[in-house]
């Protein structure tokens, strides 16, 4: 961990010592490029800044990935409620994408200039450089994947903003072009063969999970393939993780008793990629950590949805908990009538009292882990057709078994595609609760195959959302454009080439 911080500090130092803020999105002075890229440490520093910028996005990832889906909600924060009620307008800060482009700028800088450093630094091997590049491609692909899932059409910026020559008024690219770029980046990284299976770092034991490995590239590729309805691709890349034999591979942890290790202490064997925090090493390092976001109090920002109807997220968790489900028993906690999210606040599986101390408010944010990839593959199998249903059920049951749950009662030979998908969605909801996945899961359900399950998708959201007016929700969700965020008004005004999402056209005040 320390080393990462050193990188960050270094990069921050650079920002200060150089004549201008070259890490910024805005165009900058050309001299920085010539003078900066001299050693491999310089490259690593920028890469570390990329991870650091990604970490800063975690509060946004939580909001974007959860609030609209109605499993995790914000009971009282009016700004967040606008997002969860599909009432965000272009004036709201929650639809700013600038933070993502900060991350992209780091990735673009490494991709473009790592070779400059290699020319002057004799100790910087081609292999080391290529390895750095795979991380940069991963960061770029992941960033665009978040953007495309939230905004659909976004400007495709592939060059760093380092000199005035780069055009910074860039029009949006279509979703399919953005997806193609993401896949091309991941393919480049994979094909280079330079991605690491693990990071051997004496100072930071979490490096293997906190930096992008070969496994992270595969998991992201599987996820992107699933989103873009390339089910064979999804299965192919999921299998590269699930069937891996390398000694330093991530592994599905079958032992139920170790389930909470995924969150505390984190960086578990199950993990493929997670953004790391370390409060002990550096006292501001908890800022933005899930431990800070998912507080444990009746007026906390995020809770699981519960209501008397008995079918909401907290109700379903309680139902599972009653039959001994490990993941359900210990992922929420009742305080009064609140359903606080426990996985980032607790320290162990056996009770709901042992919380993290005030000096351990630094849970990591898991982006990919094995159960997620297993369920991605199961979903791809289902979409592919009935032949894959049994394998999909087996995968779901493996995940359930780990939680000490009985297998699904669904019958592969008679189940419909919709029934299979709904079982899968529920499985993901319960297993990956509050891990920033649910909204994208629902979107895939609502959009794939030309939107044949659009109505089912809408009714899932309507039945889970307890804060928005049903008529409002329905009238909003029938318009596919409303599933995506507006472009922020300040961004619209600073880039004349941007076109507002048609759902929000005309809304400026």
């Amino acid at each position: 961990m320390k080393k990462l911080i050193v990188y960050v500090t270094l990069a921050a130092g650079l920002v200060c010592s150089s004549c201008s803020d070259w890490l910024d999105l805005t165009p900058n002075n050309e001299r920085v490029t010539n003078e900066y890229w001299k050693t491999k440490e310089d490259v690593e520093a920028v890469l570390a800044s990329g991870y650091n910028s990604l970490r800063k996005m975690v509060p946004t990832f939580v909001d974007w990935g959860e609030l609209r889906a109605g499993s995790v909600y914000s009971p009282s924060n009016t700004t967040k409620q606008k997002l969860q009620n599909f009432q965000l307008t272009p004036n709201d800060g929650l639809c700013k994408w600038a933070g993502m482009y900060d991350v992209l700028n780091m990735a673009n800088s490494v991709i473009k200039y790592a070779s400059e450093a290699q020319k002057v630094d004799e100790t910087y091997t081609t292999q080391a450089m290529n390895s750095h590049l795979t991380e940069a491609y991963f960061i770029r692909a992941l960033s665009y994947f978040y953007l495309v899932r939230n905004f659909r059409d976004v400007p495709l910026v592939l060059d760093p903003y380092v000199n005035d020559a780069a055009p910074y008024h860039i029009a949006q690219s279509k979703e399919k072009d953005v997806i193609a770029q993401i896949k091309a980046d991941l393919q480049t990284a994979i094909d280079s063969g330079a991605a690491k299976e693990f990071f051997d770092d004496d100072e930071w034991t979490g490096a293997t999970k906190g930096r992008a490995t070969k496994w992270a590239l595969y998991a992201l590729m599987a996820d992107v393939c699933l989103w873009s309805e390339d089910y064979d691709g999804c299965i192919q890349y999921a299998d590269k993780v699930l069937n891996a034999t390398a000694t330093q591979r991530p592994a599905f942890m079958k032992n139920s008793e170790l389930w909470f290790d995924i969150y505390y202490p984190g960086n578990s064997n199950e993990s493929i990629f997670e953004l790391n925090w370390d409060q002990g090493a550096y006292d501001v390092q908890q800022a933005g950590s899930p431990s800070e976001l998912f507080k444990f109090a009746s007026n906390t920002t995020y809770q699981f949805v519960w209501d008397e109807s008995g079918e909401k997220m907290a109700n379903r968790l309680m139902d599972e908990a009653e039959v001994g489900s490990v993941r359900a028993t210990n992922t929420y906690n009742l305080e009064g009538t609140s359903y606080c999210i426990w996985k980032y606040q607790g320290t162990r599986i056996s009770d709901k009292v042992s919380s993290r101390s005030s000096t351990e408010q630094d849970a990591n944010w898991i982006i990919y882990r094995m159960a997620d990839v297993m369920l991605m593959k199961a979903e791809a199998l289902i979409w592919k057709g009935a032949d894959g249903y049994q394998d999909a059920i087996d995968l779901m049951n493996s995940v359930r078994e780990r939680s000490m749950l009985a297998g699904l009662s669904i019958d592969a030979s008679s189940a419909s595609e919709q029934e299979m998908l709904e079982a899968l969605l529920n499985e993901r909801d319960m297993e990956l609760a509050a891990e920033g996945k649910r909204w994208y899961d629902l979107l895939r359900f609502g959009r794939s195959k030309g939107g044949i399950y659009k109505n089912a998708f809408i009714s899932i959201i309507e039945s889970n959302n307890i804060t928005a007016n049903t008529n409002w929700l329905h009238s909003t969700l029938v318009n596919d454009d409303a599933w995506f965020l507006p472009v922020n008004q300040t961004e619209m005004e600073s880039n004349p080439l941007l076109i507002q999402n048609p759902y929000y056209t005309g809304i400026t005040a």
Partner: protein
Amino acid sequence: MKNIFKFCLLVWAVAFYSCDDPYKDQIFTVSDKQPIASYLETRPDDFSEWIKVLEYADMYNAVNLSGTSFTAFVPNNKAVAAFYADKNVSSIEELGKSYARQLVQYHVINDSTALDALVAGGQLDVTNLSGDHLEINFRDNSDESGGFGSSMYVNGEAHVSELSISTSNGLVYVLDGVLQPLIQGVYELAKENGKNKILSEALALTSWSDSLTIIADTTYTVEGAKVITRRYYTLLGVPDAVYQEQGITSVQDLASKLGAGSDYTDKNNALNRYVAYHILPGRYKVADLQKTEMESLTYKLWTPECTNTLIKISKEADGNFYLNYDGGEQKARLVETDADFSCKNGYIQQLDGYLPICTNLKPVLFYWDPTAYPELGNYIASNGVEGQTFQKGQDASNDKELRTELSDANLACYQFSYGPEGKPGSNWGNLAYQTIRTKEGMNYDDRDATVKVFNEDLLSLSLGYKGTVVMNSPALIPGKYKVTLRYFYANSMRYFRWFGNGSNGGVTTFQFTDAQVPEVAVALYSSLPNDIASVNATTGEITYKTKQGLQDVVLYESLDITEMREYPFRITIDDPAANNSKDFRVQIDYILFEPINE
């Protein structure tokens, strides 16, 4: 005061309407945007008809004024044409100037209402120029190309087709329909709705019709300022068909069933009391009537206009909400399919039973909030300090606690007197209604963040040494109760905790004067648990761990209530510090009544 202020401008304009447009020679501020009326002029294809209405009502220049901001709901030409067709007229002139003025006032709010407020739905906080609350609702439309807010309607009757067009003096929302101003009160509409004939006649016979026709009260402060307070009622209507099931086909049948004498206007007459039992002071939709005050409770006790009675609305095991479930066959339900009929001064609801006065309610746990008087609610709605909403804390991050001083409000619910030394200086108001801050992380109890201020408000008393206030409890159901006072302690009261400022520890005396129980004197502050954090060796000043907290003190272990009625409750400030410290006050949250099962 806020509403009066907001009314002023247009009231002034109205005062001149008979002669001429009062602003016709006024010069308007020039800016890059145009004011509302000028903006409408730029789109004659859409708004030429509404402009004619504005001009005829002499309101054109009023909505063009700079220096104040408006929200204008503007019906487009098509909407105005449809409205005329519906009214069977061809121009606004045929409806008369007074109507035109009401119509425009109904469509304008003297405040800038941001899109967010509309999108949130429900009743808008700020009233329009005719003093009514507009309501935003959403209708399901399955138009796949409908843009943001395409499901939005005002008062359920006019679709909002263009949102928040920014002008130099406010925002314009375009409507596809004309809003019909609410003119009639609860009584007129009950009489005309065709289904509450018997109850309407009973309202007339008992003279309750007079109250239900009143829209607002006008009073004057000591300084002579005019105070307009809107009055609201909710009528629990009984459809004629329901009476028929009881063999009641006329108001005379009803009177004889109730055993009423002939002096119907006598408040003790059985028909008069029955009618009053069907009138709730305040405006409540069905959803409001189904709310409870605590999540742990499944019921709420309501106080109708009939003295010494209660209506219990509860959610029962079958999932339905009942009125007076304890009353056996006499229980009733709200008809949700015929609900929330909107009137100028409230709502009419319908029941599926005839709801006689219930005398056999069983004692239940309840929280008496000594600020939950409809009279106070009406006063705050019309005259509360800017930004204050009755029983609603302020949740925006920069908002403060808000206090409305009530000592000059002449409210019947609080009979108070200052101590012999007269009105003391106070930083907190002498008799004040305070709403709290509810933003995230704002706790009123350091020790337990889950402890919340009931109804998000407090009654703050600073009446001087020996000052008193008397207020009536709701009708109490006969039985034995443990009675606990909950009050608020803040760090600024710490001096009284260690007997500084000549304090005796905050001694305050309480008594239910009609209930055959002794006075109870409590040192509210010195009796708090000893949690001294440190003592300053030189000044002697004590710092406590608890900076603020909601405290409980048992007033009566057993209070025996023998008669179903309201009981006066007297609070006397018995701490001399109440005269010499501006920080002295007693802040009451609620009084809890817990039935004792024997």
